[in-house]
């Protein structure tokens, strides 16, 4: 008995040990299997189809009787070959053209199941001092009738009683009132003729922002109050109105043949029965997918979605979301930048049908507007695509299933960045489009790590430590986007491959591309963009400024001569002032042994304090401080000077648009010009969008091809403030586009007064002058821990909380500790 008991215990112990062993192996990483290349075949492949449109955008796309139907202001077209060729319809097209031959313009359209077309038209209305929306219904034969909708009045808060500038896509920036400054100084005078004042006020009228026909021919429409109306398409009478919960509104919807899916402002989907118009039970799978809260979902193999946080703490899918039903009207599809997902109402899964990372869906310059599934099982998507000149146009994409294509591209390049930019996502999307066999898997160190309050739950340092651990474990990325990373450390440690072969290209600005060139000639990190600090002022002031000290002298002199000017530079807060001065001084602070030069740093803070003290009135109001601080950055370079409350612009030039703005501003001022900002160092620039290839990567060639692609002329559509391109052709093209397109800004003074700044074309000599200035830039300025410490500590100095000497001591203590680690 005793013996059998002992035996039983041994068996039990053995069993438990086995369980322990299996669970230990069960916990081991699945990476091995996940990273092995997938041999599965078949995926949807994207192709761009031609559109028969010249000047306007498409309004609606549908498939009826096996033919694609496309409506636009230019006419109505049909395609019998799935969008490869288009033929204009006769009567309907004429009728639509006739409508738009007057001054209407149309933002929306929808096809009904019986082939009739509804469009909305925005029309100027003198009674409302603005636009009203009208709705027209065309039958198959082109007969037109207006649908009078009795929409409820628009709910407006008091704060939304509008006073607006021209409703075109202009940027509005508050500026201090020009009239509040007397013109006794020698500051620039605003040209009253060019900067015309134009104040418009109107009360917006409720209208439909989206509409869709149901299978019975009735209409669903979403209005500006966020309510969905079921409308009789014959009489225009509202049959049912659906409202979201308290404090919420609907902002998207679609309908299958029996269910309406209405998405509210908290990213929850309400379901309505289309026969009873009663609310159905919530679809938890769908809601979990939309809000990023998938309950107990633990399957890592499910596609990752990109979510963002709303102001009230809810999560929602990042970017635009397109909802549509399948051809039979039974299944719901959702299209995001992550791809197309299928959900059968009441089902337990969200199935990814198309991976957005492998096509234009991930391209931030593309917005999917209208998507359909055709009877052949392919998808067609009407989208808005931002063009190189900043305008948008319609594009038609087709997604057809190719059973022979690898489900996942054969080659996978791992890329790492702390955060993504639109340009980075666009570059990846473009590269993958031109290299269908390559999949670039972008891992972000900081994004997606937000806590519920929207703050990042990990710091840069935490993210870098995680990255380093994966690099040392041999699982690191092939490509590194090095902004805000310790680039110099990585180069010194030999982590980055030499890219000098890629930079031997006359098209590249060699002075910029070699920003990280080491003594042995290797270039292990390459900036793809750069910015430069500049000074814009009267020519005599400009010629008197040769370094930081003379800059401080000039600011003090201008203050003495113009005692009533609110701010000499517009930099009324210490941080932006120190930021721009840092960019023209930092390289001077380092001794040959790498330590910081106390005297130079002290000089920097002393002169910065002088500039700050002389810059603005002592008791500048909070409103003026805020409006002044908003007056000039990036695309708005120098505009603060127009308000007559600034005399000198110290800023960072980072885009063709900004340069164009600066030139336009200088036209309106007497004798103004620009130059690189002279500080303790001259001709500085800031390398940005830095890229490197990991020396540990086993796909060196493929990774270098992508870097080469980044340096080409091909990616230049995002003319944002991340800097000028280092490819001369791309840069010239960007400047030339500004020469051709111009554009403008609506600017608002603090008294509510508007004036328009129409950007003029750049002249060839201005473009050549800028290129010459850029080619003269010699000293890269790097940012990192020192930048952060100097700016943080320097603010207390400028605010008078610490003396420059104490501040320098404090900076040196921290920075020297950092420097001594290396």
């Amino acid at each position, binding site marked *: 008995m005793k013996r059998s008991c002992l035996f039983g215990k041994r068996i039990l112990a053995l069993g438990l040990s086995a369980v322990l062993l299996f669970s230990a192996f069960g916990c081991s990483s699945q990476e091995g299997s996940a990273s092995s290349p997938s041999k599965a075949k078949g995926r949807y492949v994207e192709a761009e189809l031609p559109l028969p449109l010249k000047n306007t955008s498409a309004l609606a796309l549908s498939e009826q009787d096996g033919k694609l139907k496309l409506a636009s202001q230019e006419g109505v077209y049909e395609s019998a070959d799935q969008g490869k060729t288009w033929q204009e319809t006769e009567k309907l097209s004429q009728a639509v053209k006739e409508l738009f031959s007057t001054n209407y313009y149309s933002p929306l359209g929808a096809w009904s199941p019986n082939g009739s077309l509804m469009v909305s038209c925005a029309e100027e209305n003198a009674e409302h001092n603005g636009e009203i929306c009208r709705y027209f219904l065309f039958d198959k034969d082109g007969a037109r009738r207006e649908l009078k909708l009795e929409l409820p009045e628009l709910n407006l808060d008091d704060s939304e009683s509008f006073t607006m500038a021209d409703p075109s896509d202009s940027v509005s920036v508050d500026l201090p009132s020009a009239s509040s400054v007397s013109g006794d100084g020698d500051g620039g005078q605003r040209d009253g003729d060019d900067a015309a004042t134009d104040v418009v006020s109107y009360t917006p009228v409720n209208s439909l922002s989206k509409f869709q026909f149901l299978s019975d021919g009735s209409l669903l429409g979403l209005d500006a109050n966020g309510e969905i109306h079921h409308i009789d398409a014959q009489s225009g009478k509202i049959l049912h109105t659906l409202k979201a919960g308290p404090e919420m509104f609907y902002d998207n919807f679609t309908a299958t043949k029996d269910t309406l899916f209405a998405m509210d402002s908290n990213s929850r989907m309400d379901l309505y029965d289309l026969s009873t118009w009663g609310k159905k039970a919530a679809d938890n799978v769908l809601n979990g997918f939309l809000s990023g809260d998938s309950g107990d979902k633990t399957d890592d193999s499910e596609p990752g979605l990109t979510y963002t946080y709303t102001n009230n703490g809810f999560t929602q899918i990042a970017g635009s979301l397109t909802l549509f039903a399948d051809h039979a009207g039974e299944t719901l599809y959702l299209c995001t930048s992550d791809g197309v997902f299928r959900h059968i109402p009441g089902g337990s899964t969200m199935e990814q049908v198309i991976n957005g990372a492998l096509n234009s869906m991930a391209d931030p310059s593309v917005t999917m507007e209208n998507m359909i599934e055709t009877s052949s099982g392919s998808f067609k998507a009407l989208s808005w695509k931002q063009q190189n000149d900043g305008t948008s146009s319609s594009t038609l994409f087709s997604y057809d299933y190719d059973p022979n294509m690898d489900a996942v591209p054969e080659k996978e390049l791992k890329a790492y960045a702390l955060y993504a930019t639109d340009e980075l996502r666009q570059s990846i999307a473009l590269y993958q489009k031109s290299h269908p066999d390559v999949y670039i898997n972008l891992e972000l160190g900081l994004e997606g790590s937000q806590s519920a309050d929207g703050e990042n739950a990990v710091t840069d*340092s935490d993210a870098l430590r995680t990255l380093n*651990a994966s690099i040392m474990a041999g699982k690191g990325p092939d490509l590194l986007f090095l902004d805000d990373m*310790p680039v110099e450390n990585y180069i010194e440690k030999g982590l980055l491959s030499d890219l000098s072969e890629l930079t031997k290209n006359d098209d590249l600005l060699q002075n910029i591309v070699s920003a990280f060139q080491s003594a042995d000639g290797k270039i292990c990190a390459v900036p793809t963009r750069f910015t430069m600090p500049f000074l814009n002022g009267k020519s005599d002031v400009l010629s008197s400024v040769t370094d930081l000290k003379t800059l401080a002298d000039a600011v003090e002199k201008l203050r003495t001569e113009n005692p009533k000017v609110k701010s000499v530079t517009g930099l009324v807060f210490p941080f932006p002032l120190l930021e721009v001065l840092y960019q023209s001084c930092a390289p001077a602070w380092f001794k040959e042994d790498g330590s910081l030069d106390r005297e130079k740093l002290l000089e920097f803070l002393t002169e910065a304090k002088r500039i700050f003290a002389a810059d603005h009135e002592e008791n500048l109001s909070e409103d003026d401080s805020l409006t002044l601080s908003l007056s000039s950055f990036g695309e708005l370079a120098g505009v603060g000077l127009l308000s007559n409350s600034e005399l000198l612009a110290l800023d960072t030039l980072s885009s063709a648009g900004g340069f164009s703005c600066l030139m336009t501003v200088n036209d309106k001022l007497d004798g103004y010009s620009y130059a690189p900002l002279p500080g303790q160092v001259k001709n500085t620039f800031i390398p940005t969008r830095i890229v490197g290839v990991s020396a540990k990567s086993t796909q060196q060639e493929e990774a270098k091809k992508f870097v080469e692609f980044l340096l080409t002329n091909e990616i230049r559509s995002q003319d944002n403030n991340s800097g000028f391109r280092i490819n001369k052709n791309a840069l010239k093209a960007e400047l030339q586009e500004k020469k051709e397109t111009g554009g403008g800004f609506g600017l608002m003074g603090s008294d509510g007064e508007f004036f328009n700044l129409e950007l003029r074309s750049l002249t060839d000599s201005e473009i050549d002058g800028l290129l010459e200035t850029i080619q003269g830039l010699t000293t890269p300025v790097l940012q990192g821990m020192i930048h952060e410490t100097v700016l943080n500590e320097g603010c207390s100095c400028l605010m008078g909380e610490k003396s420059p000497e104490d501040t320098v001591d404090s900076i040196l203590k921290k920075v020297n500790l950092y420097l001594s*680690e290396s």
Partner: protein
Amino acid sequence: MRRKHKKSQWSGILFLLPSLLGVSFFVLLPFLDVVRRSFVSAVTEEWVGLKNYRDTFTNPAFQLACRNTLRFSLICIPALLVLSLLLGVFLQKLCILGGTLKTAFLFPMAIPVASIALIWRLVFENRGILNGALSQIGLPAIEWMDSPMAFWVLVISYLWKNLGYDIVLWMAGLSGIPATIYEAARIDGAGEWMLFRRITLPCLLPTAFTVSVLSFLNSFKVFREAYLVAGDYPHESMYLLQHLFNNWFRDLSFDRMAAGAVMVCLVVLGLILFLRKSLEEE
């Protein structure tokens, strides 16, 4: 008889084996890799001999961190051992009330590190509770976290958090001393001080070794609070070896980190062996 002894020896080994395997896989083998890395460059893994050791040893940040860590250990550990022993003896005498107070002393261990960091901030910020109290009584504010006071904040935090744990350990040792020895000594006329010096202290020597080693190892954990409050670069007085290693990890300086880790490990091992030998001799 001999067979039985052999069998029990095997049983002992079998009991030890799972733990030994775990320590070997998760500690000893990785540490061997650390030793290897201390002789090669960080990324390219080229053989560099003793260069990493030279670089690390001459590195000013390493020297500062070593000095601070040593100073911290020399101040904190004796203070903690003495304070916890005295409190342990005192609580032992209080019987029932002692149990309640012991629980109260253990309370800081139950507070999550993030909460402690938050409390630190509330208390020691320039405009925090402590400076508020100082200004109430007309004293000037002190930059607690950005002056040499930061070191003492760290010391007090360590003592506050670990006192309860050490008290429990001491009390466990105290409860193992037979009451009859005390009674016999009292009959012989020994006073309280004599009892403590001649009976309690000698009987607690085996416990002292455990408490010292655990206190020393726990002293490394104070970094978590320091990091959460002051980040990568705190005031130089509280810049510890863990700060340096943490920053070297961020900067991919695995070569120096490995050399530093080997040196620290040797020092810690030496200290533990020395302590054991000293206590054994006593």
